[in-house]
């Protein structure tokens, strides 16, 4: 039985981070969830809109929500942390401010109800994947991993009401369920440099470099992310990071959806891992193999 839910990929997932979209769709299909794109969606405005024009920054996400409402979607999944943040913030603001909502309704020519459930990727996994992952998992993700949440997934807590703003745990829990060993590390919500990726790669080099080096120094074998901006800074900008840190950094960066895809036995192509700049040389153990090893040891004793 297929479940259908709304899907807002946003611009990044169509462009520089298309592998994220590929992995999310692969993941959803594996768990019999059909992702239906919000019809005729537009850019959420990202950082640019609310720097330039406040009402534009409300209207762009509002139009997306209106389109979802029109298509009778009660839940939409938004894998990009920035899009998730903007959509949730705007729905929250419009819900509590009648005058603002009226103004925005006028601009986008719609009547917003502001009652759409907006899920980030981790919430999507918690709702549709977590309970069934054990039955479908083929490989144990038996690696030390550093879960990196970034700024936008957990803040501001008052509005998003998701996980803890300091030392969040939700991704760590998901990775644990795959057999991974998530490390305790201090930079889970440290800024990666975000949009400076384009204008000041030197700043990104320093900020992201520090994050990647800390994860590597603490013995992590992969960094797990849930944001296309974080991913491109940690992955695509790796040469700038290495320059800033003055050392070679080889630790790969995976989207959390890709990590689950890997555990399900999906190919690199299916989960988009082949598109990464930093090669992902992670081989996973067969899931049934691990208990056998334990059994052999017991027999020796």
């Amino acid at each position, binding site marked *: 039985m297929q479940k259908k839910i709304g899907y807002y990929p946003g611009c990044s997932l169509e462009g520089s981070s298309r592998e994220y979209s590929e992995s999310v769709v692969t993941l959803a299909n594996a768990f019999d969830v059909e992702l239906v794109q919000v019809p005729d969606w537009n850019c959420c405005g990202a950082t640019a809109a609310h720097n330039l024009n406040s009402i534009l920054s409300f209207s762009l996400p509002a139009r997306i929500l209106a389109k979802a409402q029109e298509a009778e979607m009660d839940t939409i999944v938004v894998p990009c942390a920035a899009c998730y943040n903007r959509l949730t913030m705007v729905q929250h603001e419009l819900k509590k401010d009648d005058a603002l909502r009226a103004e925005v309704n006028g601009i986008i020519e719609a009547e917003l109800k502001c009652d759409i459930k907006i899920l980030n990727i981790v919430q999507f996994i918690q709702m549709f994947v977590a309970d069934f992952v054990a039955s479908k998992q083929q490989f144990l993700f038996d690696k030390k991993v550093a879960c990196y949440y970034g700024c936008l997934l957990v803040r501001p807590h008052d509005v998003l009401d998701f996980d*803890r703003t*300091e*030392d969040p745990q939700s991704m760590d829990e998901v990775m644990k369920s795959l057999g991974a060993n998530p490390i*305790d*590390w*201090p930079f889970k919500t440290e800024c990666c440099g975000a949009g400076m990726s384009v204008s000041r790669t030197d700043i990104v080099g320093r900020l992201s470099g520090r994050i990647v080096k800390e994860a590597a120094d603490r013995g992590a074998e992969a960094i797990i992310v849930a944001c296309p901006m974080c991913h491109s800074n940690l992955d695509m900008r790796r040469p700038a990071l290495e320059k800033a840190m003055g050392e070679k950094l080889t630790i790969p960066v995976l989207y959390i959806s890709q990590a689950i895809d890997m555990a399900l036995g999906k190919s690199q192509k299916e989960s988009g891992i082949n598109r990464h700049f930093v090669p992902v040389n992670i081989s996973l153990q067969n899931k049934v193999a691990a208990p056998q090893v334990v059994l052999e040891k017991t027999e020796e004793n």
Partner: protein
Amino acid sequence: MARIGVFICHCGENISATVDCEKVAKVASEFPGVTVSVDYKYMCSDPGQNMVKEAILEHNLTGVVVSACSPRMHEPTFRNACAEAGLNPFLCEMANIREHCSWVHEKSDATTDKAIDIVRTLVEKVKRNEALAPIYVPITKTAVVIGGGVAGIQASLDIADAGHKVVLVEREPSIGGHMSQLSETFPTLDCSQCILTPRMVDVARHPNITLYTYAEIESVDGSIGNFNVKIRLKSKSLDEKLCTGCGACIQKCPVKKIPSEFEQGLGKRTAIYVPFPQAVPNKPVIDRVNCTYYIKGKCKVCEIVCPTKAIRFDQEDSFVEVQAGALLLATGFDVLKTNFFPEYGYGKYEDVIDGLAFERLASASGPTKGEIRRPSDGEIPKKIVFIACAGSRDPAKGIEYCSKICCMYTAKHAMLYKHKVHEGTPYIFYMDIRATGKMYEEFVRRAIEEDEVKYIRGRVSQVYEKNGKLIVRGVDTLLMGQAVEIEADMVVLATAGIASPGSEELAQKLHVSYDKHKFFSEAHPKLKPVETNTAGIFLAGACQSTKDIPETVAAASAAASKVAGLFSNDLLKRDPLIAVVKKCAPPLYSSCTGCFMCIPVCPYQAIDKEEIKDRSGNIIKTISHINPGLCQGCGTCVAFCKSKSIDILGYNHDQVCAEVEALLNEW
């Protein structure tokens, strides 16, 4: 024929800013029965009161309505003024047009109309008022002091020295409170135990003080002058009369690894224990949660080694009831646990501790004998970072108020560390330095200038562990917001001071009000700082708001003097606003039918039966009778009386109905 005087107060601009007082006075002058109606800027001032008095004499007034603030504020003032002019004080009423009108509405005609309505209701009531005489009840000259920290100790000693009996109730096994945990005290750096423990001994020895430790308030009823306090004496599993405090049981107890509450978890205690060696009383209690006997049903080592056979495993909680004239709350404070600040790593890293734990490290009687050694490996830390305002002044995650004591104790901590570890470097991250007490600013300057404490103005965003060091990341806002990183060996959090656990429950038992942070509320923030809104219950110390030792002791002495003042009279004058059973001429004598429904509903057991007899002693009728000394005027019996035979003096049926009718009838 009624001759009522109406006096409209402007209360500066408090009332006149939104209410047209002149108009109120003019309209009121036309009410039936009103002889004189005037307005004045400050009616409670001397000239204002004189206006009232002169009007009473000049117009031979039969009633007075002062239209001003709440009766809580100035009813006694004006009733006294009336009495001085020869008018019975209970013929004076307050019409509250400030709290009930001007303060809560905008300036408008409707606001003025409401003020007029309020005045009209009281005019109608006062016309029906009767002259009443106060009643006098005897005072039980015993005070129950709740909480045995420095506030409770000081208050108990002061009251006892004034010659009155005191019952001191403490829920822990020893008195002493947080002050007994402190190392040295600011701004003089004198040893906390050295100044406190002799006072603790004084309490135990004072002939006027009865001390109940390991005890809690079960229930309180009665009222000022005559409270009835039921105290639960938690079982100590010990016969205190037999115990000599030799300590053999403590030495032999096999359960030795329980984190000591007194040592803030830095030291260990046994299951049978005294909290600290200088405890008063110095007799142990058994912690039943951790005792092997209570868990597994066997052990009893303490019973075997006790030379006086004082251990009582089957002892149960017992109760004592105390009659008291006054209660004094001194339940103190607690510190906020910082579990909801994961960024500071408290609970995750052993070497991130709170201020109270640092006090134990610095204390000569502490787990390290006063050497500053970090909890994880016992090394002497070379760099300590102190974080002030960990939770205070933080409406998002902590509490919005300033905990007030942290600036000073953090300066003290840094100073003590520097005195003990000369080569060490203390850093303090702070928001502002609030050092407003006597010699406080000088103390902080001394920390900065003589002891070279490095003050950094800014907040800490994160503490994390790397290579055995605690990396403290913060910002220096005086260096243009430059990021700062310090590799520290230990971090001390000045966690916010909060109300003591159980405060809310206790407040509800005692019917005293408390604020949203569960601190007890004073009756007036400026003029009644140690009284509560409940007569006869007083406050001292940090149960009201976080306070340092000098302030706490001052408040305790103030509260004690209030109690002593109350006890200086043999009789307590009380307003006669109590219920009475109405009587009338024979042959009816009273409309009371003798159903006695009122007896079981009275919460104060104030009602009994009265026999009406003829001259030869034959019983004509049995009716209810209300004991004026016990009645609190709650009115429950009035509501239950089917024949409307009970009235509350000052609020009888006629008066209340007249008020309601005056409000409903447009004139």
